[in-house]
Protein backbone atom coordinates (compact mmCIF):
# COMPACT_ATOMS: atom_id res chain seq x y z
CA UNK A 1 0.00 0.00 0.00
CA UNK A 2 2.81 2.38 1.01
CA UNK A 3 4.61 1.68 -2.26
CA UNK A 4 1.51 2.54 -4.25
CA UNK A 5 1.02 5.84 -2.44
CA UNK A 6 4.69 6.70 -2.88
CA UNK A 7 4.53 5.97 -6.61
CA UNK A 8 1.40 8.07 -7.00
CA UNK A 9 2.99 10.95 -5.11
CA UNK A 10 6.13 10.75 -7.23
CA UNK A 11 4.03 10.74 -10.39
CA UNK A 12 2.08 13.77 -9.17
CA UNK A 13 5.28 15.68 -8.40
CA UNK A 14 6.73 14.82 -11.82
CA UNK A 15 3.50 15.89 -13.50
CA UNK A 16 3.58 19.18 -11.58
CA UNK A 17 7.17 19.84 -12.60
CA UNK A 18 6.47 18.97 -16.21
CA UNK A 19 3.42 21.17 -16.38
CA UNK A 20 5.55 23.98 -14.93
CA UNK A 21 7.86 23.62 -17.93
CA UNK A 22 5.03 23.81 -20.47
CA UNK A 23 5.11 26.91 -22.68
CA UNK A 24 2.04 29.15 -22.51
CA UNK A 25 0.84 30.54 -25.82
CA UNK A 26 0.34 34.26 -26.43
CA UNK A 27 -3.43 33.80 -26.22
CA UNK A 28 -3.27 32.14 -22.82
CA UNK A 29 -5.24 33.87 -20.10
CA UNK A 30 -2.64 32.84 -17.52
CA UNK A 31 -0.04 35.33 -18.70
CA UNK A 32 1.17 37.67 -15.99
CA UNK A 33 1.10 40.70 -18.33
CA UNK A 34 -2.66 40.44 -18.81
CA UNK A 35 -3.39 41.46 -15.26
CA UNK A 36 -0.19 43.26 -14.33
CA UNK A 37 -0.81 46.70 -12.80
CA UNK A 38 -0.21 49.71 -15.07
CA UNK A 39 2.96 51.47 -14.01
CA UNK A 40 4.24 54.88 -15.05
CA UNK A 41 7.57 55.45 -16.83
CA UNK A 42 7.42 51.93 -18.22
CA UNK A 43 7.43 50.01 -21.49
CA UNK A 44 4.93 47.21 -22.15
CA UNK A 45 4.74 44.64 -24.93
CA UNK A 46 1.02 44.57 -25.69
CA UNK A 47 1.60 41.87 -28.29
CA UNK A 48 2.31 38.80 -26.18
CA UNK A 49 3.96 37.05 -29.11
CA UNK A 50 6.84 39.46 -28.65
CA UNK A 51 7.28 38.82 -24.95
CA UNK A 52 5.30 36.98 -22.30
CA UNK A 53 5.72 35.54 -18.82
CA UNK A 54 3.64 33.19 -16.74
CA UNK A 55 3.75 31.70 -13.30
CA UNK A 56 5.01 28.13 -13.26
CA UNK A 57 3.18 27.41 -10.08
CA UNK A 58 4.03 25.46 -6.97
CA UNK A 59 7.58 24.20 -6.66
CA UNK A 60 9.02 26.36 -9.44
CA UNK A 61 11.42 29.12 -8.50
CA UNK A 62 11.29 31.17 -11.71
CA UNK A 63 8.36 32.28 -13.85
CA UNK A 64 8.09 30.90 -17.37
CA UNK A 65 9.21 33.30 -20.11
CA UNK A 66 9.30 33.46 -23.90
CA UNK A 67 10.50 36.45 -25.88
CA UNK A 68 11.51 37.57 -29.34
CA UNK A 69 12.21 41.17 -28.41
CA UNK A 70 13.47 42.60 -25.17
CA UNK A 71 13.86 46.00 -23.61
CA UNK A 72 17.43 47.29 -23.36
CA UNK A 73 16.75 50.67 -21.77
CA UNK A 74 14.26 53.52 -21.74
CA UNK A 75 14.01 57.00 -20.32
CA UNK A 76 13.05 60.62 -20.89
CA UNK A 77 14.83 63.93 -21.29
CA UNK A 78 13.74 67.52 -21.91
CA UNK A 79 14.06 69.12 -25.36
CA UNK A 80 15.29 72.65 -26.09
CA UNK A 81 11.73 73.97 -25.98
CA UNK A 82 10.79 72.23 -22.73
CA UNK A 83 8.81 69.36 -24.22
CA UNK A 84 9.66 65.78 -23.23
CA UNK A 85 11.45 63.23 -25.37
CA UNK A 86 10.96 59.57 -24.53
CA UNK A 87 13.37 56.98 -25.89
CA UNK A 88 13.19 53.21 -25.84
CA UNK A 89 15.96 50.89 -27.01
CA UNK A 90 14.67 47.48 -28.10
CA UNK A 91 16.67 44.35 -28.92
CA UNK A 92 15.69 41.73 -31.48
CA UNK A 93 16.78 38.24 -30.41
CA UNK A 94 15.62 36.50 -33.58
CA UNK A 95 17.22 35.87 -36.96
CA UNK A 96 14.47 37.88 -38.65
CA UNK A 97 13.80 41.58 -39.04
CA UNK A 98 10.83 42.60 -36.93
CA UNK A 99 8.48 45.39 -37.92
CA UNK A 100 6.88 46.86 -34.88
CA UNK A 101 4.77 49.84 -33.96
CA UNK A 102 4.93 51.75 -30.72
CA UNK A 103 3.09 54.59 -29.08
CA UNK A 104 3.54 56.69 -25.97
CA UNK A 105 0.86 57.87 -23.62
CA UNK A 106 1.80 60.82 -21.47
CA UNK A 107 0.46 61.49 -17.99
CA UNK A 108 1.07 64.42 -15.68
CA UNK A 109 2.64 63.99 -12.26
CA UNK A 110 -0.76 63.12 -10.77
CA UNK A 111 -1.24 60.33 -13.29
CA UNK A 112 -3.86 62.23 -15.28
CA UNK A 113 -3.70 61.56 -19.06
CA UNK A 114 -2.46 64.66 -20.84
CA UNK A 115 -0.92 65.67 -24.15
CA UNK A 116 -2.35 64.79 -27.57
CA UNK A 117 -3.82 61.43 -28.54
CA UNK A 118 -1.01 58.87 -28.92
CA UNK A 119 -0.29 57.62 -32.43
CA UNK A 120 1.31 54.34 -33.46
CA UNK A 121 4.75 54.89 -34.94
CA UNK A 122 6.27 52.19 -37.13
CA UNK A 123 9.82 50.97 -36.84
CA UNK A 124 11.95 48.01 -37.91
CA UNK A 125 14.33 46.18 -35.62
CA UNK A 126 16.95 44.35 -37.69
CA UNK A 127 17.66 40.68 -36.92
CA UNK A 128 19.81 40.20 -33.82
CA UNK A 129 20.20 43.94 -33.48
CA UNK A 130 18.84 46.91 -31.63
CA UNK A 131 16.70 49.90 -32.63
CA UNK A 132 15.60 53.04 -30.86
CA UNK A 133 12.07 54.38 -30.73
CA UNK A 134 11.65 58.06 -29.88
CA UNK A 135 8.58 60.12 -29.16
CA UNK A 136 8.13 63.80 -28.33
CA UNK A 137 5.43 65.27 -26.17
CA UNK A 138 3.67 68.48 -27.14
CA UNK A 139 3.29 69.78 -23.61
CA UNK A 140 5.99 71.54 -21.62
CA UNK A 141 4.85 70.35 -18.20
CA UNK A 142 6.72 67.54 -16.38
CA UNK A 143 5.33 64.23 -17.62
CA UNK A 144 5.28 60.53 -16.95
CA UNK A 145 5.00 58.06 -19.80
CA UNK A 146 3.93 54.58 -20.74
CA UNK A 147 5.15 53.10 -24.02
CA UNK A 148 3.31 50.25 -25.72
CA UNK A 149 4.95 48.03 -28.33
CA UNK A 150 3.30 45.55 -30.68
CA UNK A 151 4.10 43.78 -33.92
CA UNK A 152 3.02 45.58 -37.08
CA UNK A 153 0.09 43.94 -38.86
Amino acid at each position, binding site marked *: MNTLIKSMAAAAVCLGLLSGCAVKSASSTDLIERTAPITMNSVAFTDYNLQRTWSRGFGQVEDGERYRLSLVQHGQRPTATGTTEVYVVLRNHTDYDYRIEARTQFFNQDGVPTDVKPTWQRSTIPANSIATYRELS*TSTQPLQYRVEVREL*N
Partner: protein
Amino acid sequence: MFTKNTLKPACALVLTSLFLSGCASKIENVQGKPSVYEDVSTTGSVGGVGIESQDVVAMTDQMMRDMLANPMLTGRSTPPRIIIDNEYIKNESTSVINTNMLTDRLRIELNRAANGRMIFVGRHFSDMVQKERDLKRDGAVDGGTIRQTAAQAGADFRLGGRISSLDAIDRNTGTQSRYSQVTFEMVDLELGTIVWSGLYEMRKAARDNVVYR
Protein backbone atom coordinates in the same frame (compact mmCIF):
# COMPACT_ATOMS: atom_id res chain seq x y z
CA MET B 1 -6.61 -3.09 -2.99
CA PHE B 2 -7.75 0.33 -1.69
CA THR B 3 -9.08 0.57 1.77
CA LYS B 4 -11.90 2.93 2.67
CA ASN B 5 -9.49 5.08 4.68
CA THR B 6 -7.12 5.73 1.74
CA LEU B 7 -9.85 6.37 -0.84
CA LYS B 8 -11.52 9.17 1.09
CA PRO B 9 -8.49 11.54 1.21
CA ALA B 10 -7.69 10.75 -2.42
CA CYS B 11 -11.22 11.70 -3.51
CA ALA B 12 -11.09 14.86 -1.43
CA LEU B 13 -7.77 15.80 -3.03
CA VAL B 14 -9.13 15.27 -6.54
CA LEU B 15 -12.25 17.34 -5.82
CA THR B 16 -10.21 20.17 -4.30
CA SER B 17 -7.87 20.30 -7.28
CA LEU B 18 -10.83 20.33 -9.65
CA PHE B 19 -12.41 23.25 -7.77
CA LEU B 20 -9.14 25.17 -7.76
CA SER B 21 -8.44 24.62 -11.46
CA GLY B 22 -11.98 25.70 -12.26
CA CYS B 23 -11.29 29.08 -10.65
CA ALA B 24 -7.89 29.55 -12.35
CA SER B 25 -8.67 32.54 -14.60
CA LYS B 26 -11.41 35.19 -14.89
CA ILE B 27 -10.32 36.52 -18.28
CA GLU B 28 -12.55 35.76 -21.25
CA ASN B 29 -10.12 36.08 -24.11
CA VAL B 30 -12.44 36.34 -27.14
CA GLN B 31 -12.77 38.77 -30.04
CA GLY B 32 -15.43 41.48 -29.92
CA LYS B 33 -18.18 42.19 -32.44
CA PRO B 34 -17.10 43.04 -35.99
CA SER B 35 -17.56 46.69 -36.96
CA VAL B 36 -17.56 48.76 -40.13
CA TYR B 37 -15.51 51.41 -38.34
CA GLU B 38 -11.77 51.03 -38.31
CA ASP B 39 -9.05 52.80 -36.39
CA VAL B 40 -7.68 55.54 -38.64
CA SER B 41 -4.21 55.22 -37.16
CA THR B 42 -3.74 51.54 -38.01
CA THR B 43 -3.74 49.49 -41.20
CA GLY B 44 -7.29 48.79 -42.32
CA SER B 45 -8.87 45.79 -44.01
CA VAL B 46 -8.23 47.37 -47.43
CA GLY B 47 -4.62 48.24 -47.94
CA GLY B 48 -2.33 48.94 -50.84
CA VAL B 49 0.94 50.67 -51.56
CA GLY B 50 -0.38 54.25 -51.57
CA ILE B 51 -0.54 56.84 -48.81
CA GLU B 52 -3.34 55.78 -46.47
CA SER B 53 -5.06 57.10 -43.37
CA GLN B 54 -2.52 55.61 -40.97
CA ASP B 55 0.26 57.30 -42.92
CA VAL B 56 -1.50 60.67 -42.87
CA VAL B 57 -2.06 60.39 -39.13
CA ALA B 58 1.47 59.14 -38.40
CA MET B 59 3.29 61.71 -40.53
CA THR B 60 1.31 64.74 -39.36
CA ASP B 61 1.62 63.60 -35.75
CA GLN B 62 5.37 63.21 -36.12
CA MET B 63 5.79 66.60 -37.79
CA MET B 64 3.64 68.33 -35.18
CA ARG B 65 5.69 66.95 -32.29
CA ASP B 66 8.94 67.78 -34.06
CA MET B 67 7.92 71.38 -34.76
CA LEU B 68 6.98 71.92 -31.13
CA ALA B 69 10.44 70.74 -30.08
CA ASN B 70 12.16 73.21 -32.43
CA PRO B 71 13.37 76.38 -30.64
CA MET B 72 13.37 78.37 -33.89
CA LEU B 73 9.58 77.97 -33.99
CA THR B 74 8.39 77.72 -30.41
CA GLY B 75 11.24 79.16 -28.36
CA ARG B 76 10.52 82.79 -29.28
CA SER B 77 9.34 85.39 -26.80
CA THR B 78 6.73 86.53 -29.34
CA PRO B 79 4.91 83.57 -30.89
CA PRO B 80 5.61 83.42 -34.63
CA ARG B 81 2.82 83.69 -37.18
CA ILE B 82 2.68 80.65 -39.40
CA ILE B 83 0.79 79.69 -42.54
CA ILE B 84 0.13 76.00 -43.04
CA ASP B 85 -1.90 75.24 -46.16
CA ASN B 86 -1.44 73.20 -49.31
CA GLU B 87 -0.54 76.13 -51.58
CA TYR B 88 3.10 75.10 -51.71
CA ILE B 89 2.73 71.35 -51.14
CA LYS B 90 3.32 69.54 -54.43
CA ASN B 91 2.28 65.99 -55.11
CA GLU B 92 4.79 64.64 -57.61
CA SER B 93 4.18 61.03 -56.63
CA THR B 94 2.08 58.31 -58.22
CA SER B 95 -0.11 58.21 -55.11
CA VAL B 96 -3.52 59.78 -55.36
CA ILE B 97 -3.92 62.03 -52.35
CA ASN B 98 -5.59 65.30 -51.52
CA THR B 99 -2.74 67.28 -49.95
CA ASN B 100 -5.26 69.26 -47.92
CA MET B 101 -5.57 66.15 -45.76
CA LEU B 102 -1.98 66.57 -44.70
CA THR B 103 -1.95 70.32 -44.17
CA ASP B 104 -5.38 70.52 -42.55
CA ARG B 105 -4.60 67.83 -40.01
CA LEU B 106 -1.17 69.27 -39.31
CA ARG B 107 -2.47 72.81 -38.81
CA ILE B 108 -5.39 71.78 -36.63
CA GLU B 109 -3.44 69.40 -34.42
CA LEU B 110 -0.58 71.86 -34.14
CA ASN B 111 -2.88 74.73 -33.28
CA ARG B 112 -4.54 72.67 -30.56
CA ALA B 113 -1.26 71.43 -29.11
CA ALA B 114 0.70 74.68 -29.42
CA ASN B 115 -1.71 76.47 -27.14
CA GLY B 116 -0.50 79.94 -28.10
CA ARG B 117 3.15 79.08 -28.71
CA MET B 118 2.47 79.54 -32.43
CA ILE B 119 -0.11 81.76 -34.11
CA PHE B 120 -1.69 80.41 -37.28
CA VAL B 121 -2.70 82.70 -40.10
CA GLY B 122 -5.73 81.46 -42.02
CA ARG B 123 -4.57 82.67 -45.41
CA HIS B 124 -7.00 80.28 -47.10
CA PHE B 125 -9.76 82.27 -45.39
CA SER B 126 -8.39 85.68 -46.42
CA ASP B 127 -11.25 86.31 -48.90
CA MET B 128 -13.77 85.69 -46.16
CA VAL B 129 -11.94 88.04 -43.79
CA GLN B 130 -11.56 90.76 -46.44
CA LYS B 131 -15.27 90.71 -47.27
CA GLU B 132 -16.17 91.29 -43.63
CA ARG B 133 -13.51 94.00 -43.26
CA ASP B 134 -14.93 95.78 -46.32
CA LEU B 135 -18.46 95.60 -44.92
CA LYS B 136 -17.24 97.06 -41.63
CA ARG B 137 -15.33 99.87 -43.29
CA ASP B 138 -18.24 100.65 -45.62
CA GLY B 139 -20.49 101.00 -42.61
CA ALA B 140 -22.80 98.22 -43.72
CA VAL B 141 -22.09 96.44 -40.44
CA ASP B 142 -20.67 97.70 -37.15
CA GLY B 143 -17.05 97.25 -36.05
CA GLY B 144 -17.53 94.08 -34.03
CA THR B 145 -16.45 93.73 -30.41
CA ILE B 146 -12.79 92.75 -30.58
CA ARG B 147 -10.64 95.35 -32.34
CA GLN B 148 -9.80 96.93 -35.68
CA THR B 149 -6.44 96.52 -37.36
CA ALA B 150 -4.84 98.31 -40.28
CA ALA B 151 -4.54 95.10 -42.25
CA GLN B 152 -4.81 91.33 -42.01
CA ALA B 153 -1.97 89.52 -40.25
CA GLY B 154 1.24 88.98 -42.14
CA ALA B 155 3.05 85.70 -41.57
CA ASP B 156 6.61 84.95 -40.46
CA PHE B 157 6.79 81.39 -41.77
CA ARG B 158 4.99 79.26 -44.32
CA LEU B 159 5.00 75.52 -44.86
CA GLY B 160 6.14 74.07 -48.16
CA GLY B 161 6.75 70.49 -49.17
CA ARG B 162 6.70 67.75 -51.73
CA ILE B 163 5.43 64.19 -52.10
CA SER B 164 7.48 61.99 -54.40
CA SER B 165 7.58 58.28 -55.07
CA LEU B 166 9.48 55.48 -56.75
CA ASP B 167 7.53 52.46 -58.04
CA ALA B 168 8.67 48.94 -58.88
CA ILE B 169 6.65 45.96 -60.11
CA ASP B 170 7.62 42.29 -60.14
CA ARG B 171 6.12 41.03 -63.41
CA ASN B 172 6.22 37.39 -62.31
CA THR B 173 4.29 37.78 -59.09
CA GLY B 174 2.49 41.05 -59.77
CA THR B 175 3.79 42.44 -56.52
CA GLN B 176 4.00 46.20 -56.55
CA SER B 177 6.39 48.15 -54.37
CA ARG B 178 6.31 51.89 -53.76
CA TYR B 179 8.78 54.06 -51.91
CA SER B 180 7.09 57.29 -50.85
CA GLN B 181 8.87 60.33 -49.55
CA VAL B 182 7.07 63.30 -48.03
CA THR B 183 9.04 66.42 -47.16
CA PHE B 184 7.91 69.36 -45.08
CA GLU B 185 9.87 72.62 -44.86
CA MET B 186 9.14 75.78 -42.93
CA VAL B 187 10.33 78.84 -44.81
CA ASP B 188 11.13 82.27 -43.36
CA LEU B 189 8.92 84.62 -45.37
CA GLU B 190 11.37 87.54 -45.19
CA LEU B 191 14.75 85.88 -45.65
CA GLY B 192 13.72 82.77 -47.53
CA THR B 193 15.71 80.55 -45.19
CA ILE B 194 14.40 77.15 -44.11
CA VAL B 195 14.11 77.11 -40.33
CA TRP B 196 12.71 73.60 -39.90
CA SER B 197 12.55 70.47 -42.04
CA GLY B 198 10.75 67.18 -41.60
CA LEU B 199 10.92 64.00 -43.64
CA TYR B 200 8.56 61.04 -43.65
CA GLU B 201 9.38 58.05 -45.81
CA MET B 202 8.02 54.56 -46.24
CA ARG B 203 8.11 51.64 -48.63
CA LYS B 204 5.13 49.38 -49.09
CA ALA B 205 4.70 46.21 -51.14
CA ALA B 206 1.40 44.57 -51.97
CA ARG B 207 -0.35 42.41 -54.51
CA ASP B 208 -3.77 43.79 -53.69
CA ASN B 209 -5.62 45.46 -56.50
CA VAL B 210 -6.53 48.53 -54.47
CA VAL B 211 -7.87 51.64 -56.18
CA TYR B 212 -7.43 54.98 -54.41
CA ARG B 213 -9.85 57.80 -55.08
